């Protein structure tokens, strides 16, 4: 196994950790908000999805580059 694969795997792993924490924060706040104001559910849902997508960007970019590193492109 070359070091490239290890590098790619590490990128994906840390991206997963960071993304997991970020998404957890967003979704927990979303659930809190829905628990406090159930009638604002649809608005909050769109905002939460938007937030998840924004948080997700850095890890997913890292994953993409990690995959490329693993594949050796």
């Amino acid at each position: 196994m070359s070091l490239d694969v290890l590098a790619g795997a590490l990128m994906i792993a840390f991206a997963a950790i960071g993304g997991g924490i970020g998404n957890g924060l967003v979704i927990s706040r979303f659930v809190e908000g829905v628990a406090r104001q159930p009638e604002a559910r649809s608005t909050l849902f769109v905002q939460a999805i938007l937030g998840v997508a924004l948080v997700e960007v850095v890890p997913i970019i890292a994953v993409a580059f990690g995959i490329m590193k693993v594949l050796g492109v």
Partner: protein
Amino acid sequence: MNLLEMEKTPKIGFELGGVPIDFDLTVVITTTVTCLLVFLIVVLAARKLTMVPSGMQNLVEMVIDFTKGIVRSNLDLKTSSRFYGFAFTLFLFLLIANQLGLVFNLVTEHQQPIPFLGIEASNHAEVAGKEASKYAWWKSPTANLNVVFAMAIAITLMAHFIGIKRSPKNYLAHYFQPYPWMVILHLIDEVAKPVTHGMRLWANIFAGEVLIVIMLQASPLMTGLPLILWIGYSLFVGVVQAYVFTTLAFVYLSQKITTDH
């Protein structure tokens, strides 16, 4: 695994005054197909307009209402009416482009090189253990970094251009707010915006497609329910990313247009 070959695409290239101009044939094909699909959907919806919408008209009107909402929430009413067409086309294009690569794959194997298309043949004799060269002819156009960067840079340039046309003084002034030294941060921000804007979309779609390929090739255990789940999630991600890309395009646009920064 020969995933490397799965990601190769045929290319056409020529030089114009020393600048190499390459066309990714896969992108050319899939972008054209996406454009045709979008146009077909819209024309089918607009062909028989009725007061009580049904079928395709209903769907297109829903999308129009949705994109109108995106534009309205970022721009004032007078400005926003000029961007309805842009928002609608952008959203529908991305929506279809993101799903295109999930439907099927078209991969060709080549024993003979075709230099015109940039296809190299793998040489069995020279590289032991390597299979025939494979080229993907069918992928989401948005899984190509050039495509998303082209869109993101074009949108950023448009935003800057409109901002300058609106009020050059305000446009320049907002770089030095709230403190003059913040101009550095602003410049970094202006570069980072299109880069992350494009990469966000590309990385999501690219990762989705690569994972599908990996799952298909990895082992028979992965091709059942996990693959279906992942394709479903990719569909969802494609829709969300189309929405996010469109929304962010208008967020960036509104940052340049609104005078009260």
